[in-house]
């Protein structure tokens, strides 16, 4: 394991996460299922060829061959009536275990407590690219509903055959099929006794429209909530198996450091300790966590590193080190984006504005740091770990240990959150390397400092906007350059005739990767701050100015809904109060956020005193779960908006502890009202990310309204507001 220079996880959904899947995925042997699950009905869900490719591969194929049957999920109803659903999606706190259970209950007509979800186990569940990009609801929810509806059909057909009646007089409810005419009724379980029925779902199947949902569309408490309030749930870091050792890795002194010398003798002399020194990797395994720490501390390692940039010159550095996009290869981004002529529009504009916005690196800080437990059985490897991409981690492990993916099983116990920060498998590799040397299972759990240092960050970025506007407040020119932060949400949804939008990758001094909302938070911050500046320049109300420049009706609807709830336009109640609005669209979700802020001019204290977030993501599957996501995204967003930033210098993180890195806490949280627009006529989109995106610009715009000070850097007020 070596620290590579500019070790980077490419940033965006379209740049990184949707890479090609293996060209073949062979049909699964159905007998295996029944061997594992017992008799019953098995529904295999074929992945959708086109849009399903996003989730399940389906990249390039060799022409002239029949496409292999790709299975994205499966569902089994056993002889005892139990329902088991298998999906590669994982539960990270977004409550997908519950909302997928609801979807199945809805279509299969069984009680929620009869359904067991098996998630993110690479041996048992179908291949899945990972849980990110707000795709679980629009894709997996739909597929499982189709599978459940198909299973229900099988039961109705079985009953119709058994009773020799027309299937149209039969209804399914509560795990039974009932004859409406005779009231005769039979349990699903009885219908499948001793049978091994399989069905593979074809393309589209008719489904219950959202207006007819009875279980889905309503709030349902977390299905296994009791395990969480009693401490019974076993997170990845809680896993323990017999004979297990505790692992600890000796870290380099800085990023990109190389090992000069190492002395492991003292550690090796400690009874029960295994020391591994393999390339740049140094680690120990010991019978207890304390012994592992002691042994790691006994290792003398000398590292060498070159001077590296610090956060002080970061933005300059990112601009100077921009790399040409061509050299980077095509990630499928439709960039640069051009329409009309910027030059002509700028010349004829009545108002012109040029501004630069910046966004700092921030850390995900999942409350559970990375953890993995690895066990070898001969040349077969099993790893329990917290990740949003169990199949991706399987690939990483197979490649690290030069074994085939078939020899690796990755299991993902529901984990202590990720927010886009747990896509990688470094802890799994560390545990597996130590376990191979120790010839016993090894668990590695990262400390908070390790999580802050050796995971990855949300990319920092510099965004430059040049705009032109006519006297009536119509934006006519929009030139936009984003350095390093990424392409998610980069396109403007305002109706602007002349546009040039470009992304410039850069040599990131820190390891960077996904984060809740990806670059859309930075892009929304820059765009919505700039629009606010234009509104003030034109002397128009910021809300009215936005509506004037917008055509998208769904976006207009959330702006209006947020403004109405917030009572936008009301007079200020006190000096130092300010109101800000911002909104946008990303990953199928429409968000508009109003923030009320209070600025104390004497002390520079800035407090967010009220947030109203209006959100629309099509038909709502679980209103309470959605509300939790929308409110939660705004609370998380408060940190990045107001005070979170990574300080670094010479390849070291300077504030990588909770005592030095400020997170939103109870006293920071204002009343937050979520206004949910339920569009039952539209497909459901995910909601884990986009609700975070309106907050920072809404607060920045509110601070301007309160103080006349325009802030163009995220975080906005890490040290309070200087008004003089």
């Amino acid at each position, binding site marked *: 394991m070596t620290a590579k220079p500019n070790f980077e996880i490419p940033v965006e959904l379209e740049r990184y996460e949707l890479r090609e899947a293996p060209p073949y995925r062979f049909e699964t042997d159905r007998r295996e299922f029944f061997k594992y699950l017992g008799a019953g009905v098995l529904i295999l869900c074929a992945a959708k060829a086109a849009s399903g490719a996003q989730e399940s591969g389906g990249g390039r194929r060799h022409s002239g061959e029949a496409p292999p049957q790709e299975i994205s999920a499966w569902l089994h109803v056993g002889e005892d009536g139990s329902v088991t659903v298998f999906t590669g999606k994982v539960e*990270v*706190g*977004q*409550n997908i275990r519950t909302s997928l259970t609801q979807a199945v209950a809805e279509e299969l007509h069984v009680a929620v407590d009869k359904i067991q979800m098996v998630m993110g186990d690479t041996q048992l569940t179908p291949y899945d690219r990972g849980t990110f990009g707000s795709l679980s609801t629009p894709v997996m929810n739909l597929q499982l509903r189709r599978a459940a509806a198909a299973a229900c059909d099988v039961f109705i057909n079985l009953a119709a055959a058994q009773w020799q009646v027309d299937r149209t007089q039969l209804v399914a409810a509560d795990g039974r099929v009932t004859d409406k005419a005779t009231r005769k009724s039979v349990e699903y379980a009885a219908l499948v006794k001793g049978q091994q029925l399989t069905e593979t779902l074809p393309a589209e199947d008719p489904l219950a429209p959202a207006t007819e949902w009875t279980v889905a569309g309503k*709030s349902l*408490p*977390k299905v296994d*909530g*009791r395990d*969480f*309030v*009693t*401490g*019974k*749930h*076993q*997170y990845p*870091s*809680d896993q*323990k198996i017999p004979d297990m050792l*505790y692992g600890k890795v000796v870290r380099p002194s800085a990023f990109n450091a190389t090992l000069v010398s190492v002395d492991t003798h003292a550690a090796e002399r400690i009874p029960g300790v295994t020391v591994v020194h393999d390339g740049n990797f140094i680690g120990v395994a010991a019978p*207890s*966590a*304390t012994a592992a720490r002691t042994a790691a501390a006994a290792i003398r390692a000398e590292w060498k590193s070159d001077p590296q940039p610090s956060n002080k010159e970061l933005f300059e550095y990112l601009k100077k080190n921009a790399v040409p996009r061509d050299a980077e290869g095509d990630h499928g981004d439709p960039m640069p984006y051009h329409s009309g002529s910027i030059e002509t529009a700028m010349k004829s504009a009545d108002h012109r504005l040029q501004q630069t916005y910046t966004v700092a690196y921030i850390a995900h*800080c*999942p*409350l*559970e*740091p990375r953890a993995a437990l690895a066990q070898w059985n001969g040349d077969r490897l099993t790893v329990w770990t917290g990740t949003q991409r169990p199949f991706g981690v399987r690939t990483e492990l197979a490649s690290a240990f030069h074994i085939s993916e078939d020899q690796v099983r990755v299991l993902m116990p*529901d*984990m*202590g*959150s990720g*927010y886009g920060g747990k896509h990688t498998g470094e802890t799994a590799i560390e545990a597996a390397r130590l376990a191979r040397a120790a010839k016993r299972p090894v668990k590695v*759990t990262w*400390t*908070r400092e390790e999580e802050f240092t050796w995971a990855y960050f949300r990319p920092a970025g510099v965004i430059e906007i040049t705009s032109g506007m006519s006297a009536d407040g119509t934006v006519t020119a929009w030139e936009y350059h984003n350095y390093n932060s990424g392409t998610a949400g980069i396109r403007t949804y305002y109706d602007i005739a002349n546009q040039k939008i470009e992304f410039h990758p850069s040599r990131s001094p820190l390891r960077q990767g996904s984060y809740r909302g990806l670059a859309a938070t930075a892009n929304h911050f820059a765009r919505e701050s700039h629009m606010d500046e234009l509104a003030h320049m034109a002397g128009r109300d910021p809300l009215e100015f936005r509506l004037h420049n917008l055509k998208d009706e769904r976006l207009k609807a959330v702006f209006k809904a947020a403004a109405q709830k917030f009572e936008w336009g009301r007079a200020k109640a006190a000096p130092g109060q300010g109101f800000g609005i911002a909104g946008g669209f990303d990953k199928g979700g429409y968000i508009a956020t109003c923030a009320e802020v209070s600025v104390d001019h004497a002390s520079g204290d800035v407090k967010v005193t009220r947030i109203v977030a209006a959100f629309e993501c099509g038909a709502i599957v679980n209103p*309470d*779960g959605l509300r*939790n*996501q929308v*409110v*939660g*995204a*705004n*609370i*998380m967003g408060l940190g990045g908006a107001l005070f979170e930033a990574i300080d670094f210098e010479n390849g070291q993180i300077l504030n990588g*502890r*909770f*005592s030095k890195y400020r*997170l*939103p*806490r*109870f*006293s920071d*949280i204002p*009343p*937050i009202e979520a206004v949910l627009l339920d569009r039952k006529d539209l497909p459901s989109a995910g909601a884990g990310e986009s609700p975070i995106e309106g907050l920072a610009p809404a607060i920045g715009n509110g601070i301007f309204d309160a103080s006349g000070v325009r802030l163009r850097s995220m975080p906005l007020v890490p040290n309070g507001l200087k008004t003089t």
Partner: protein
Amino acid sequence: MATITQLNVNGTSRSISADSQESLLFVLRDQLGLTGSKYGCGEGQCGACTVLIDGTARRSCITRMGTVGDKNITTIEGLAIGERLHPLQQAFLDEAAMQCAYCTSGMIMSAASLLNENASPSESEISHFMEGNVCRCGTHPRIVAAIQKASKMQKGAGQ
């Protein structure tokens, strides 16, 4: 260094082997299998490891074994009475006051300490007391609501 061999946890005396400098959290988790108490930061800043020591909330990650002696420790595993959940546990479920829930046991243990001190805390008293507990998923408003609900449940039960 003196080896500590016994710990009172959840009403039972348990055999352990730890030196006095060791952190209570890791003894609970690694030696006694009480993994409901979580590691979040190791410096008492996030509250995920909160337990009650003689009824008062303590950050077990920075509590040295040598300071525990024969005091009574209550962890999340010891809060319910048989199958009957503690009012706080029930209220957290009722209010869906969790997302990833990694902070939940620490939240509940801190709140238990608060309710021991103050049976009907106001919203701002709750917020002030819970300041040391981090929820990264942003479930704070529901946690406050759950604590208020539990406070009412306890009073209802006491009457």
